[in-house]
């Protein structure tokens, strides 16, 4: 089928482009791109829940930081090696997303937003409360020497970049697969009309829970990767701001489009990078972008592309 080829081609092409970018771009930008790819994984996790299932969470920083601290604390305090550290990060994200899912999904709409926000806030405060271990806002650094897998040094520019690319590629293809599967279509049905989906026989409750968990674990993977590759864990990543970022990236790039999160993350990263060289108040840009997007381009960049030209974009 023509569309299927297009979809595969696009996704493979993007990963390929990211691959060669390492060799083509100056180090400053490839360093940025490594960071961007990890954050884009966070955004993709968020997009699955927001863009495809239609659930707006304001507490995803909880999942991101669960992964971050899961890996970070295990490696820092308990001398875990990288692979088991990663497992701990994913496990932490799995637990938090399952618990939050069970509770928060009993609500909907505005209440859901507030409940997720509250859980994330409680998480942030808990990080501060156990400051002896977490070092609170100050955070802690993971030694370079520990961040290796065998002989593979994850702290070198190449190690960082390709590890980030690997994570991105895995999650990118996973999302591509999910949203085009029966499960993904069911999520879209829930987004479009939950009551109708229910009355067609879809187990809406279980489907939403699965969406929260997959979204949460993917966000946690990004958090763990961030700590691992950039060597730092801190309470800032558990704040409300870090719950707002993925919303911002996804809205800008295009909610409910697989390539949306990557596009949004790249744009916002460079927009903020640029404005922080101008002023201390760089988040002003984030605010203005959010308002303009909501008023004039709620579909986001890739969303507008899909609407006008590329209807086959998944």
């Amino acid at each position, binding site marked *: 089928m023509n569309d299927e080829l297009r979809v595969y081609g696009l996704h493979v092409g993007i990963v390929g482009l990211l691959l060669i970018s390492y060799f083509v771009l100056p180090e400053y930008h490839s360093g940025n791109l490594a960071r961007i790819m990890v954050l884009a994984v966070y955004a993709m996790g968020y997009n699955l829940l927001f863009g495809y299932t239609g659930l*707006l969470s*304001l507490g995803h920083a909880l999942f991101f930081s669960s992964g971050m601290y899961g890996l970070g604390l295990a490696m820092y305090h308990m001398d875990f090696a990288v692979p088991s550290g990663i497992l701990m990060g994913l496990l932490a994200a799995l637990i938090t997303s399952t618990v939050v899912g069970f*509770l*928060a999904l*009993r*609500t909907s*709409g*505005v*209440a859901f*937003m*507030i*409940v997720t*926000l*509250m*859980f994330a*806030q*409680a998480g942030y*405060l*808990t990080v*501060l*409360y156990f400051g002896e271990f977490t070092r609170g806002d100050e955070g802690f650094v993971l030694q370079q020497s520990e961040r290796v897998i065998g002989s593979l040094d994850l702290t070198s520019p190449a190690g960082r970049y390709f590890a980030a690319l690997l994570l991105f590629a895995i999650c990118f293809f996973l999302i591509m697969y999910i949203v085009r599967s029966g499960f993904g279509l069911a999520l879209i049905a829930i987004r479009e009309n939950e009551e109708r989906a229910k009355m067609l026989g879809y187990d809406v409750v279980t489907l939403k829970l699965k969406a929260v968990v997959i979204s949460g674990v993917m966000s946690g993977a990004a958090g763990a990767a961030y700590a691992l590759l950039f060597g730092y864990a801190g309470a800032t990543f558990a704040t409300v701001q870090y719950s*707002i970022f993925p*919303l911002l990236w996804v*809205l800008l790039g295009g909610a409910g489009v697989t390539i949306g999160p990557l596009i949004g993350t790249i744009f916002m990263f460079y927009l903020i990078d640029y404005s922080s060289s101008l*002023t*201390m*108040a*760089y*988040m*002003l840009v*984030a*605010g*203005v*972008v*959010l*308002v303009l*997007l*909501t*008023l004039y381009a*709620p579909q986001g960049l890739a969303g507008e592309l899909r609407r006008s030209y590329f209807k086959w974009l998944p």
Partner: protein
Amino acid sequence: MEFGPHLMLASLEGAVIAAVLALTAMGLSIVFGVMRVVNVAHGEFFMLGAVIAWTVAYSLGAHPAIGFLAAIIIAPLLVGILAGAADRIILQKINYDPDRTIVVTIGLLYIIQQTTLMTFGPDARPVEPPFNQRLALPWFEFGESGFQLYWPWGLSITSYKLFIILAAITLLIGLWLLMTRTRIGLVMRATQQDSEMAGAFGVPVKSVYAWVFGLGAGLAAIGAVLIVPVQQAHYLMGNEPLLLSFIVVIIGGLGSLPGTVIAALLIGMSDGIISVFFSPTLAKIIATLLVAMVLVFRPQGLMGKLQ
């Protein structure tokens, strides 16, 4: 200080917090009650109230009482007008769609906060209270001659803090009278009940919304002006009031004035008391989780109506 007086001190501090919180939370509650939207930028309107108060007092350079008087009139007015404008320009355009309103008010939050950062700066700036005598407070004990009052050292309150409590009570009563006894209040309550019907009866719903949004912001600003001589004006000071207001409004029941006041008392007092005896962080964790659980298991809060 012994436990008794210590508790009384904590309670008084809690009462001050509760007073300001009640006003701020009412602002949020009214907006949600009448317009059915959540204003995430509410904390920033609070912050603006404090920042404008500082600016007014500083520019006047006169006696603190005059500066304060000017501030408490000008700041809420300016903030209310700004909010009304935001409603007309932005919220009306997206037709008060719940999801989009939340996102757009998040944007507004950053715009207001960061603009303040750029103009006011990152420092905290103090405002002088209009008056500030220390009033020693008595405690009781049962001595040889029976019930006796004594004045423990350290147990005191300032006249200004007392004023905050009284001012808040007065304003809340005024607000209650406005909502229940005046025509404006009636219009607001009608719009809250059924905006379509109200519109059909000739109520200018869009104008009501702008006024309500302005009123909500103005209430937050008043709360800020009251507390700024005690705290200081700082561009990030809106975060905590926002969170606490959320907590109060949800526990008290969205759209219920008595519920909001009771919840503000509860939260303010317990925040004050727990913070004195335990860790403030722990208090906040408990409060945050409590809100989440209330929403999950008893969404109508203490006194709100189930929708």
